[in-house]
Each structure stands twice: as structure tokens, then as C-alpha cells.
């Protein structure tokens, strides 16, 4: 099944090769050139292109590897000074590299599925839901990025966690961290779970805490993690501060060019509305009032009415909202499903409150949630709700008009399949006047997405408002979606805090208890 779905989705990905790609395409091409033509010492100093290397070193090594295959397609793409170079073969090579590295994702799916108890759910439904994830197709194969590979490694790490192989799991997660540092938001869940259920096993008494076993495990775990970090950063030892400044650019704004559907999207919207109200009421505002946030390049934005947000505040909020889940995870039993749920909550909390969040980061919550969706009704329900909203919120990334039908079809196919299959899985859930598993209000909210879509693509242009309020549809989309994401996060959070170690169907349940 996994092989079949992989081949079929790969065919769709191949068909999408000539589609629009974003500036990320040039970003990655530039990194190919940087890693190929410069010595290691200069990788993080090069500023030939505005798209400087801002991923951790392992990803740079990955680009370095790719750059050895690239000459078979087109040597010129490796020229550092050919900015915005897009020959047919360059496009073909870069697209194919994404499609082929997606095999790691398929491997991750395979490992995850085999870690679960045998049933048709994980044999058929889970592979399809994971492999055909329309968000990944939109972000990787149209917009252009290498998320498939990265989520593949995340899934490998999760699969080892499900099997109870904690060291391997930690190893792969550290590798992932050194490929793309955004996954650091997930680290707290890993940390707490490994601390409680790998290092400090059994009941929490002074005896167990100070036992030899604890220290042995701690040392083992620590050495694995630290050695991965050392292996990554050793070649760059003499210019670590430069790398850190590249990796954490706090100079960028609170929100990305298009607002990711989080709390700050609502905050920005409130600011806009307040500004509009102030204009109407003729208040005098000192600042310039013409800045629009939703256009073009990454830029800083000063809030007009509401106070501007400092990065520290976003970090504080993220920590505050992650802590209860951590405490809960620490006190729960060692079921890996608890860890997964906590992972989802970590990803969602940081998505909602983080600094300069990209809309693509919603996949960090959706993909682990997919595995949970076949476990319990509430997980399934949250998955349906969040995946629909989250994938819809990716639409503004693919703005060329000729992609309109394709993105709608991708979302529709995936969502209809998800609802159909999960409805078959939980046939007892009530759904007389609503979508499967959801209550009427949630159903109406999801159907409202269709209204938002219609407004953006039919009503807004028909009213001739594109020139007057170009940002309105985008603002509407992100504000509407952020309501949904916040709702999903809140209900799932409450569900997690109330849970008391729901049993999961794992292959080696017994093995876990005895060892």
C-alpha cells in the first residue's frame, strides 16, 4: 500500500513540475552554489545573494551532496553569480531532488505504520492520509521546499519512540534539529518524555531518582545528543556566533509577509480595524498610516494603535502556554501516544504565539496528529478540523490564478478522503446534521471556509475592491483560519490535560511493561 501510494503521489508531483515556484526555489539554488563553490569557512559569511544560508550546517551538507549531482543536469546553476538562474534543467533537477528525497518521508511512514498494531486502519488509511498530505504537496512540490525529507526524519524519530527505542529516537530528532532548527519548538516534548520515561523510570522516589540506572541513561542520552551537535558544528567552530545570528534573525517582523493564522494575525487585524475606526472618527495618529503588512518581501511593521510586540513577549507566551502540557506529560504514564499529543500541542502553541511564524509550520502539528487520528475519536475529530483549516490557510502561498483549480482539487480530494475514511472508522460518532465527527458549529465553521474562498475569488474582484483594499482577502483568510486553529488548539489542550493515559494500540505493549 505504501509503495503504491508513494508511486501514485509521485506521479502527481511529477505533473506539477512546471508549476509556479516561490523565491524559495532561488534560495535553495543559491545554497547549492554557495556550498559547491565556496570553502566551508565561508558558507555562513557569503552575501552574494540576499538569500543567505540560514539553515543549520547539516542542511548545508545536504545541499553540498546535492550539488555533486547537479552538474549532470546543468553546471551553470552552481555558479554563485548567476542569480535567479532558472533553466529547464535546473527546475527539473531541483524538483526531482524534492520528489526523490520524499522517499525518506515514505520510509518514515512505513516505520510509523509498522510500529502500530496491525489493522486495516494503519494498513490503508494512515499511509494514504500521511503520504497524500495535500499541504506537503502544496508547500514542497509547488511552493518549493524540502519539508518532505525533514518530516520523514521526524516520522522516523516518532516511529522509534513508538517502539520504545528512545536513544534512536533522540538521535534522529537531534539530526532533524541540525537540519532545520524550527523543530526546536518540539524539543520540550522530547525532553520531558525522555527525562521521565527513559532516564527516571518507575515511580518517582528519591531512590529511583538517584539510582545508578538514572545516571547511566542520562549519560547515554546526553552523549548521543551532544555528539550529534559536536559533529555538526565542529567544522564551524571558529565562527559559531555568525551561524547563530543567521539562524535566529530577530530583525524580521512579528508576522511573515502573509500572516500565518495565529494569535498575531488576530492582533494585527484588530490593529487594522482600530486604525480604520480612528480614521473614520478623525483621531490624529502620529505614525505613518499607509504601511501594509501583506505585501511583498519580509518587512518590519509598526503597529499603529496597539502596542508593538517585542520578541521576548512571544517567547514568554510560548513558554507559558507550553508549560502545563509539559507538567502533564511528566505525570502521565509512558504511553507514546501521550508524547505524540504533547508534541502536537507544543507545535501548535509555538505556531500560535511564536515570532515570525510561517504558515507552513502548521504542518508540524498536522503530521503528528495524523498518526493520532486513527487512535481515538477526539484525536480524529481534531485532525479533521485542524487539517482542513490548516491546509486551507496555505492557499495564499499559491497565488497564481492558474493554480486555483489545482489547489482546490488537492484540498478537496484530501479532505473528502479524510472525512470519508475517519467516518468509516468511528461510525458511532453522531453526525446527523453536521460533517462526520464534528458538531454543527464546527461544521458551519468549516463550510464557512468555502464562503471565504468565494469572497476572495469571486465577490472581492467583482466588487472592484482589489485596488482599494488589496490586503483584505488575505487578512480575512488568516483571521478566519486563526480562529479555527486557536479553537482546535484550545479544545485539544483541554482534552490532553483531562486525559489519564488512554491506552494506545502498540505492537510491543507487553515488551514495554516488562523491560
Amino acid at each position, binding site marked *: 500500500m505504501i509503495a503504491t501510494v508513494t508511486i*501514485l503521489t509521485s*506521479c502527481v508531483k511529477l*505533473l*506539477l513540475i*512546471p508549476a509556479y515556484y516561490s523565491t524559495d526555489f532561488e534560495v535553495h539554488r543559491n545554497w547549492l552554489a554557495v556550498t559547491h563553490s565556496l570553502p566551508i569557512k565561508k558558507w555562513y559569511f557569503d552575501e552574494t545573494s540576499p538569500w543567505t544560508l540560514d539553515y543549520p550546517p547539516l542542511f548545508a551538507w545536504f545541499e553540498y551532496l546535492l550539488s555533486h549531482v547537479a552538474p549532470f543536469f546543468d553546471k551553470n546553476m552552481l555558479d554563485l553569480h548567476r542569480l535567479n538562474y532558472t533553466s529547464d534543467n535546473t527546475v527539473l533537477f531541483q524538483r526531482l531532488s524534492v520528489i526523490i528525497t520524499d522517499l525518506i518521508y515514505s520510509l518514515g511512514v512505513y516505520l510509523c505504520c509498522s510500529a502500530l498494531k496491525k489493522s486495516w486502519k494503519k494498513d490503508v488509511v494512515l499511509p494514504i492520509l500521511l503520504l497524500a498530505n495535500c499541504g506537503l504537496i502544496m508547500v514542497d512540490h509547488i511552493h518549493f521546499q524540502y519539508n518532505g525529507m525533514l518530516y520523514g526524519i521526524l516520522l522516523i524519530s516518532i516511529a522509534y519512540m513508538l517502539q520504545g527505542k528512545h536513544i534512536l529516537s533522540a538521535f534522529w530528532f537531534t539530526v532533524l534539529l541540525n537540519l532545520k532548527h524550527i523543530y526546536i519548538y518540539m524539543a520540550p516534548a522530547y525532553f520531558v518524555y525522555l527525562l521521565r520515561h527513559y532516564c527516571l523510570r518507575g515511580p518517582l522516589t528519591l531512590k529511583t531518582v538517584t539510582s545508578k540506572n538514572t545516571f547511566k541513561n542520562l549519560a547515554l542520552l546526553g552523549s548521543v545528543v551532544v555528539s550529534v551537535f559536536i559533529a555538526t558544528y565542529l567544522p564551524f567552530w571558529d565562527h559559531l556566533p555568525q551561524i547563530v545570528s543567521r539562524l535566529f534573525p530577530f530583525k524580521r517582523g512579528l508576522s511573515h509577509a502573509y500572516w500565518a493564522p495565529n494569535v498575531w494575525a488576530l492582533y494585527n487585524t484588530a490593529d487594522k480595524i482600530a486604525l480604520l475606526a480612528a480614521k473614520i472618527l478623525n483621531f490624529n495618529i502620529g505614525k505613518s498610516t499607509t504601511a501594509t503588512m501583506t505585501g511583498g518581501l519580509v518587512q518590519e511593521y509598526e503597529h499603529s494603535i496597539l502596542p508593538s510586540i517585542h520578541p521576548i513577549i512571544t517567547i514568554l507566551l510560548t513558554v507559558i502556554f507550553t508549560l502545563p502540557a509539559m507538567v502533564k506529560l511528566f505525570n502521565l504514564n509512558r504511553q507514546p501516544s501521550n508524547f505524540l499529543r504533547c508534541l502536537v500541542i507544543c507545535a501548535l502553541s509555538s505556531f500560535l504565539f511564536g515570532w515570525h511564524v510561517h504558515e507552513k509550520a502548521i504542518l508540524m502539528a498536522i503530521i503528528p496528529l495524523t498518526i493520532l487520528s486513527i487512535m481515538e475519536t477526539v484525536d480524529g475529530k481534531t485532525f479533521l478540523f485542524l487539517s482542513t483549516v490548516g491546509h486551507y490557510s496555505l492557499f495564499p502561498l499559491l497565488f497564481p490564478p492558474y493554480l486555483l483549480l489545482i489547489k482546490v482539487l488537492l484540498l*478537496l480530494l484530501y479532505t473528502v478522503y479524510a472525512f470519508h475514511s475517519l*467516518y468509516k472508522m468511528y461510525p458511532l460518532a453522531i453526525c446527523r446534521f453536521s460533517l462526520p465527527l464534528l458538531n454543527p458549529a464546527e461544521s458551519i465553521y468549516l463550510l464557512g471556509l468555502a464562503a471565504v474562498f468565494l469572497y476572495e475569488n469571486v465577490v472581492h474582484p467583482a466588487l472592484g475592491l482589489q485596488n482599494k483594499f488589496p490586503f483584505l482577502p488575505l487578512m480575512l483568510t488568516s483571521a478566519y483560519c486563526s480562529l479555527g486553529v486557536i479553537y482546535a488548539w484550545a479544545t485539544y489542550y483541554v482534552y490532553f490535560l483531562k486525559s489519564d493515559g488512554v491506552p494506545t494500540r502498540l505492537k510491543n505493549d507487553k515488551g514495554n511493561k516488562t523491560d
Partner: protein
Amino acid sequence: MVALKLSCEAWLVIFGGLLAVLLRASTGLHPYSGEATPPMYGDYEAQRHWMEITTNLDVTEWYHNTSHNDLQYWGLDYPPLTAYHMYACGSIAKFLNENYTKLHDSRGYESEGHKLFMRYSVLISDVLIFLPAIIIYYWLTVPDDKGKKKKKEQGIVPLGPSTSIVLALLYPGIILIDHGHFQYNCVSLGLAVLAVTALLCEKDIIASFLFCLALNYKQMELYHAPPFFFYLLSTCVPKPGQGTLSGLQKLSKIAATVIFTFTVIWLPFLFSINDVLQVLHRLFPVARGIFEDKVANIWCALNIFYKYREVENTKMVRACLTATVSALVPSSVDLFLRPNKKKFVLALINSSLAFFLFGYQVHEKSILLAAVPVLLYMPFDPIACFWFLCLTTFSMSPLLLKDRLTLAAFALKIFFMVSFKVSADHVQPQFSWAGYYRNLLRTLLNVEYNKTNAFNVITVTYDHFKKNSEAVIALALHVIMSISLTGGTLLSIASLILKPSERYPDLYPLLTSIYCAVHFVGFFVYFNIKQLNIPQQDEDVKNVKFDSS
């Protein structure tokens, strides 16, 4: 929601339909024929040019060479219905952007917006005509595969209606030619499928009306005309117990429908005999020669030994006509004398293949006309049909290479093949293909050698094989099919990687067309035998259900 109460079969069709539209829309991202290649461009420009001509000129001027209508530059050479369709599309284009259809000035107009408009115009025609036609055909005429245990055990997989719908919609040939290369075949083919459905549901008047529409959209639908003609004629022959009059009555009804439909469609041209002749002259251009590019038919294959291009065109037309008619005789006569609904689709295959193999001025795209009836026949003989369909897409690969559609073709072919394998496994879950081979081999190798001595080993084996002849045939068929498909794949890989020598620049197209021509001749014989083996239908036509044989 109520909609969720739909059966699994219905859901399969919904997913298949959405998927089919997705594949079509994504194929539309790829280049079209003649993209950015002045001065003549390709079929895309031809269609755009027709929109320009039809919206700007008077109806009677459409087919004439005038100062505003240079017939040398993609002159209109399809029947009036195409022209009307182009008029409708052209009017919308004019509304969207005047530059799309400006007389003279819009020649070679290309832009992203225009490409989007053109792609959507095909997609909408496809979704409105071909897609429903396919769904209606399978739902009305293919029986559910329940109660067919016997067939399954023999290894033949009769596909259920919904699986067939999905597979038919995923067939790469039509997607590539219509949504990649750029044409509107989906309209005429969809109308023809609707006509077939009506005919099989015994709505003869509707069938003849729909077929006239198809014929008036593309004259290539003539490939399908003989079976329609002979079958409808045979229904007019009075059955025992019916009066002569009833037959005549029916015949006149059908004739009236045909004449009426043609009159309405040709109305603007009927006021002068000159106009009619001019249109007819445009539709059947004898002067163009026997074939343009390499085509997988008899003439192109024989061309290696004998150059036809030196022969006079009129002589050649006569030769083609004779050959085609003689190739048509067996299936047509059989259909007329021993009519049976089960034969009808087979007769369509045979007739279109006869035209394709022996006809004059055949395009490589015309294989679609044979592929569609094969699609319709797929539920009853999946393996052979699948094999044929793969070869049809393969036969178009030189054309697709020219259009830079190789990548799309590769992706769509793999998608189709894997989908077919999945549905075949789905029908026979008890054994996958590997298990199926194992079963076959087990039957074959289970020879009772303990009763033999050294001398009669061969006769015993022979007897055993003779007893299990079905298994032998099935195995042989699978092996031959695998070899043939592998050969095709290797040939296309070779054409991509290895450069042909300078002496034979057309080596790969020629090899491809010969490779396919040999296969098509084989299939032509196979489908003819299949048709001739079906007995005459029972006298009481209405009580017999359409059933696979």
C-alpha cells in the same frame, strides 16, 4: 450529512472524478503544441485562430479563402459543429480580452492568461461531455461483477462499473492529447460514447442523433460510422412475426433524424451548393498525402520497402479505400447479419482500427478513436484492453516528445498502470498478481510423473497441458504482454537517451510506429475473432441483458 450515506462504489466514482480533473488540470501546466514556435505554431494556435475567424467573419466566409481568411494559415478543416463551438469560445475570449481574437493582429497570440483560458475551455468541455458520458455508459451497460465467480477463477478479471469508470477517466491518451497537446477530442469522443450508450439502451433515435452530432464535430468520427450504420440497419430488418411495414417505419424515423440533424447543423451553408462543396473539400483534403508524420499503420510500415509519396494521390486514395473497405467487411457483415449488442462495441473497435491501419491521411492522434471503444470494452476483457491502451499511448510518444510532454506522459502512464494493477488486485484480493502466477504454475507443473517412464514424458506433459489449456493460454498471454510492454518501455527510454545516427534521424519514430503497427494488426485480428465468436442475439431482444461473454 446525507451525502455520506452513499455507497462505497459511488465514493470511488467521486474520488476518481476529482482525481481525473486534478490530473487534467496539472497536465495543463505543461507546454502545448507549438508553444513559442513561430511562424506556424501548432494545434493550440489553430484552435485560437478558428476562434478569431469565427467571431470576426461571416458564417459563409469561414471555409472560403478570402482576403481576411487565409486558408493556408490553419484554415478551418473541421465540420460546422466545431466551428460553432469555436464561435462560442471565441465570444467568451473576446469578452475577456479583445486581443485574444483580434482579426489578423492576434496571430500567434500567447500569454499566461490566454493559456489559462484555453486550458479551461478544454477542461470544461471535458467535464461537461466526456466525463458524464463515461460515467453514464458504465453505469447503464456494465453489470455489477457480483455472481461471476466462475470468471474470476479462470483468472479473467471482469471489472465492476465504478472501477472501470475510474480507469477510463485516468486513460493517459486523451488527457495528453486534449490537455497537453491541445485539442477538443473529448467533445466528439464524449458524444460518440453517449451515442453508444443510447444504442445499447435501445434508444435508437437518440443514438443516431448523438452520433450525427459527433460526426459533425469531427469528421474522424467516420471511423465509428460503419458499426452504427449496420447495427441500426439490422434493427430495421423485420423480425419474424413483424410486418415489413414496421421495419420501414423505423428506417424512415432514423433517416429523418439524421437528415434533420444534418440540415440544422449545416443550415448556414445550405443556401449555395458552392458553400457545401467548399466545406466538404476542406473536410477531406486529398492533397495532403497519405500520412504526415510517422503513424503506426500499414502504409507507414510498408513505406520502408516502397515509397508511396511518389505515387499519385488519387491512386493512393483508391488503394486506401479498397484496403479499408475490405478490412471492414468481416466485422460489418457479421454485425449486420447476426446482430448482437455484445458485438457492437467490438465492431466499433474493429472498424476504427481498420480505418486507422488502412486509411488515408491518418494522424497518430487518430488512435484515440480506437482507444475509446477499447476503453468501453475494458470491463469484459481487461488484460487485453489494458495492453492495447498502453500501446496506444506509446504510439503517440514521438508526437509527445515534440511537444515536450514526455514528462507528463511518463507520469500519467505510470499512474494509469499502477491504478490498473491496484484495481486488478482489488477485484481478486485472494491472490495478487504474483499469487496468480504461482497458481497458474502450480496447475501446470502438477504433472503426474510417477505414472510415466522415460519414453512418454513428453506425451504425458502434453496431455496435461492440453487438459489445462486455459491456464497455458493465460500464462502465455501474460508473458507475451510483459515482453511487449517491456520492449515498448525500452524503446522509449532508448529514444530519450541514445541519439540516432545522422543517416537515420527519424529512426526512433519509425521504430516506434512499426512496433505499434505490428501490435495493432495483431489486435485487429484478435478483436475480429472475438467479435465473430459471439453468436447471434436471441430473437427476443428485449429480454436479454447485455452480458459479458
